[in-house]
């Protein structure tokens, strides 16, 4: 391979916001001079929806995948057909990130059923004898920070055997009381989720307390809505038989890319919620 194509985005973290200018360079390295039919750069942004097999059936899920919704798409011709000198050639580029019409630039998100992705693709068309060269590179879009201060809405919770829902034999459960609070139910995505939890009493020894972050994705299509909840991450906040009455911190950093601010559009909806698991072990 004599010729290599690469895209370098100026920002190291590749994060851009709506209204900013995406800039960078296309780097072409080659030992010899390169003959080409033109180099173009395409910026694409789309939402991919995938129907869950659970809600609509396997076949439909396979065939009926919803068409990607395009958010942004623009192409520029960087170099006219001609020759590039040997060695390293850098071609700078700039793309303004603007909303097109009423299409909002959603935040990048990699979910199970919903995917929002932005890519840059560079194509070098070449003559019949040589293959065309393509290079794609993902960049990340963050939505503008919401205007107006978010009001923190703390919430307290209590877990006892009585509050559990899907339990069959309530009598066999050991007695326990877990109290706690989350500092806010609406979180800023860049800030961690915080809170506290106290094991007031428990008859059996606690083995582990875990925090589960769950996303709820809803896809809308012709047949109606499909709503699915899947786990994003699960972290342990207590290991072993913890002290009774000692507050244990709840702290979770939202993983990047796999979470996004709660979204509601006509076609799809993404939301998150947190679950708490306490694993109790009794020695009877």
């Amino acid at each position: 391979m004599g010729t290599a194509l690469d895209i370098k985005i100026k920002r190291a973290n590749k994060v851009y916001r709506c209204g900013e200018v995406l800039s960078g360079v296309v780097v072409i390295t080659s030992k010899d001079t390169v003959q080409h039919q033109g180099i173009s750069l395409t910026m694409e942004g789309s939402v991919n929806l995938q129907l869950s097999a659970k809600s609509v059936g396997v076949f439909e899920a396979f065939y009926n995948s919803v068409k990607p919704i395009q958010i942004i798409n623009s192409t520029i011709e960087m170099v006219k057909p001609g020759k590039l000198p040997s060695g390293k050639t850098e071609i700078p580029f700039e793309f303004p990130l603007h909303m097109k019409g009423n299409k909002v630039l959603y935040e990048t998100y990699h979910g199970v059923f919903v995917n929002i992705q932005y890519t840059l693709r560079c194509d070098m068309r070449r003559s019949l004898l040589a293959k065309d060269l393509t290079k794609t590179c993902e960049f990340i879009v963050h939505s503008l920070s919401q205007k107006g201060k978010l009001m923190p809405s703390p919430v307290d919770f209590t877990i006892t055997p009585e509050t559990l829902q899907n339990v069959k034999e309530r009598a066999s459960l050991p007695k326990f009381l877990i109290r706690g609070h989350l500092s806010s139910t609406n979180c800023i995505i860049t800030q961690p989720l915080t809170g506290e939890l106290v094991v007031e009493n428990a008859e059996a020894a606690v083995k582990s307390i875990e925090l589960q972050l769950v996303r709820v994705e809803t896809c809308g299509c012709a047949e109606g809505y499909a709503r699915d909840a899947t786990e994003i991450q699960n972290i342990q906040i207590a290991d072993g038989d913890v002290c009774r009455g000692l507050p244990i911190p709840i702290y979770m950093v939202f993983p990047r890319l796999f979470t996004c601010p709660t979204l509601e559009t006509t076609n799809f909806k993404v939301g998150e919620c947190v679950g708490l698991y306490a694993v109790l072990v009794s020695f009877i």
Partner: protein
Amino acid sequence: MNDLFCKRAVSLNSTYFSTCISFCNYACIYVDIGYVSLSQVCGYLYACILSLYSFFLRHARSRNYVSESEVCKLESVPLDFGDYHPLKPITVTESKTKKMNRKGSTSSTSSSSSSSVMDPLSSVLDGTDPLSLFAAAADPVTTTATMDSTRKKRDKDDSSAVGSDFEPWSSKRGEILSRYTTTEKLSIVSGSFSRKATTTGSAVSEKVRTRLEELDDLEEGSQKELLNLTQQDYMNRIEELNQSLKDAWSSDQKVKALKIVIQCSKLLSDTTVIQFYPSKFVLITDILDTFGKLVYERILSMCVDSRVSLPDNFSPESVNDTAKETCLNWFFKIASIRELIPRFYVEAAILKCNKFLSKTGISECLPRLTSMIRGIGDPLVAVYARAYLCRVGSPIKYLFTATCFCLLFQQIHGDTVQNQLVVQCVEIPLYLTLYSPAIDWILQCIAYRAPEVLLTEMMERCRKLGNNALLLNSVMSAFRAEFIAARSMDFIGMIKECDESGFPKHLLFRSLGLNLALADPPENDRLQILNEAWKVITKLKNPQDYINCAEVWVEYTCRHFTNREINTVLADVIKHMTPDRAFEDAYPQLQSIIQKVITYIYDFSLLFSVEKFLPFLDMFQKESVRVEVCKCIMESFIKHQQESTKDPVILNALLHICKTMHDSVNALTLEDEKRMLAALINGFIKMVSFGRDFEQQLSFYVEARSMFCNLEPVLVQLIHSVNQLAMETRKVMKGNHSRKTAAFVRACVAFCFITIPSLSSIFTRLNLYLHSGQVALANQCLSQADAFFKAAVSLVPEVPKMISVDGKMRPSDAFLLEFLCNFFSTLLVVPDHPEQGVLFLVRGLLNVIQDYTWEDNSDDKVRIYTNVLHLLSAMTQEAYIYHVDKVDSNDTLYGGDSKFLTEINKLCETVIAQILDHLKTLGKEETLKRQSQLALYFFNTILAHGDLRNNKLNQLSVNLWNLAQKHGFADTKTMVKTLEYIKRRSKQPEMSHFTDLALRLPLQSRT
């Protein structure tokens, strides 16, 4: 003759002979021919020489030593010893010269020499010492090469100025590893990260292999659990993991590296085999530290723009985006680790990287990590997690509330832990000691340079917290000793009333004792403290517990109390340790008790007045330990004993101790060990003195000889000491022995005479014979002296060709040459035995030399013969150059009798014939150089000692001169100087014949 004298001056113990030799005479002789010593030349003219020799030395030059010495003596100059010393380094030249100028008025010679001539050594060393110069030049190289290591060091030390008085973790590490061990089988869960790990896995015994289990885990597919590992296997495995971490890192597999680290830290949540946990913590945190360092250095290297590295205290603004992004990535990745304990440890490991993100990053993270620990259920794991946090966070700033401890102790006594302990069969006292390293460390971090107020507050809090023994112990080991010592009564109170909860009290007393050994408690409390503490200690049943405590408290006792208390304490120790031979298991502690006692009491008369000291020593029944202890005592004796002693208590005790050391010597004892023991015993012997009671002194030496017969150096020392004793006696009697003293001196001489043959080293024997002979001579024991010299003469043929010097084989001829020269110079003053022939000893020695098998290619024999000529020439003088006081030498005995002179001349002829014969054999091509050298040496001898007015002798010397330069091996410079010397001599009165001689000596210019 100069050779003889110089050497003798060096080798003789000057005290013996200073009385009989006037050293000032040497100077003139030295000046006479000193410059010839290394002449090199050649030539041959045997025929002429041979015809001449028989006339030589009939006219040995007659000398007037007194007038010669006056002519040649250096001008005597009064020296100001108080100020000037030739070896004193000259530091400041300016002031020095000033000083010298001032002194110039009193002593011209010394001032001119020292002010004009700078000390060559110090001038070289002055500032620009070549070595340090070189080092300075090499410095840049080393700095670049070691930049990494220095950076690491910097990282470790951190910028927060931890002083050297802060005991670093690295020093605790080893202690923990050695203390917390187990014989239980361990298990380890690890992914097959390294090829090595799997291969060794299969190499381990079959049993282990069959126990390999695969656990399926979604994330790390190929995990294996190794069971039944011994502790060593376990440590090896962890080391392997450490290695594979480094490998993965260097091969750019960062994710794998992270996985390894997570795996490792997961091991820390496992508390099966709980006794091993502290050591496990140490091992695994080592890996974590490595990881933290790797990440930090990588990010730091990303910050380096155009090879300008960041300064030490960089601000986050100067860090570029890529580095920040990488750093953030690490934190995000770690935040999503599922398990609590790995998440905590890995984040703590890279805590330092927060520096790249924001200034306050570290201080913001610490409280969060601290509260995270609350989620850890097992109290032991939690405490160690805290300790780790203290270690990575800059230790001083980190504080945490004591309430954690409070809850901790509730937990320890909770059901879960109790159940676990029952399962593992671990008792509570043992379990509690597992906490010590972590709590010690935490408290040390808090207490480091903390103000008094804070410490007091913490102490109060501990008291309020139910006065927990475990906590109290850690407080005592972590806080400043002065702080503890000042409140020792409080502490004793707290220890007494503290709730034991399983933690053994004797450990508490031990910790307190350790503090008191470092710092002094208030004067008034001292006795009470001892009483209170000892009351508890003495009640301890288990001898091991007892001795551990006692060991510490002995130091306190020695420091502040008198013999009486020490005696009581030692008696108590003996009482406790004797039953069932408990002392056998406590040798190290007992040894350290002895050491402490002798560091504080170094007055030995006081020490041995402690009644129980010797009974205490009797407890050391294992020989090696016993000898060690004896060595310590003797070392301290030699170090501290200022003046000699005759105290019978000390002598008896120390003789006993020395005897013990001596008796430990056997065939297997190493040379070094023997040397050391001998040095110690010698030091003791030197310190013994009975003053004017010489008889007793001698009987002491006799006793010592019988006790220490296996150590040769001691015997040698004894011989020297006895010789010295004889000379002392002589000094006391001012040279005139009474009948009694004469008998005593003869006894001394007899002592030496019978002791010397028991030595093995031949040169030691020879020299001692000579020395003792000289001493005997000085004490007018003529026949005894004769016996010594005869013994020496008969010993010479036994000298081997090679002798071992410092373990290496060396040719012995140099030593023999030196000895013989020394011997001959002594023989000058030895009077002939009336019943033996003239010069009996000299003849005897010459015969021995004749028969001795010399090396084929050495000229030593001829050199000795030439030196014998010096002796013979000195013997023909009317008055000898030196005498032994009150002993008539041959000059007086024969009074220059012509028969005597004829005998000497005959002897000379024989010797010269030998020399010339030898010169003849050196006529071959390859030996011409040696021939030339010897010829010149001989020439110089004749020049100095022969009477050159004798024509034949004159002719011989001319021939030798020619021989010396015949083959061009002569050093022209030397020849020219020799000639100049002859010319200069010719100007002196009665030396006019030298003028003619000078004319007859041609100088050969070298072509």
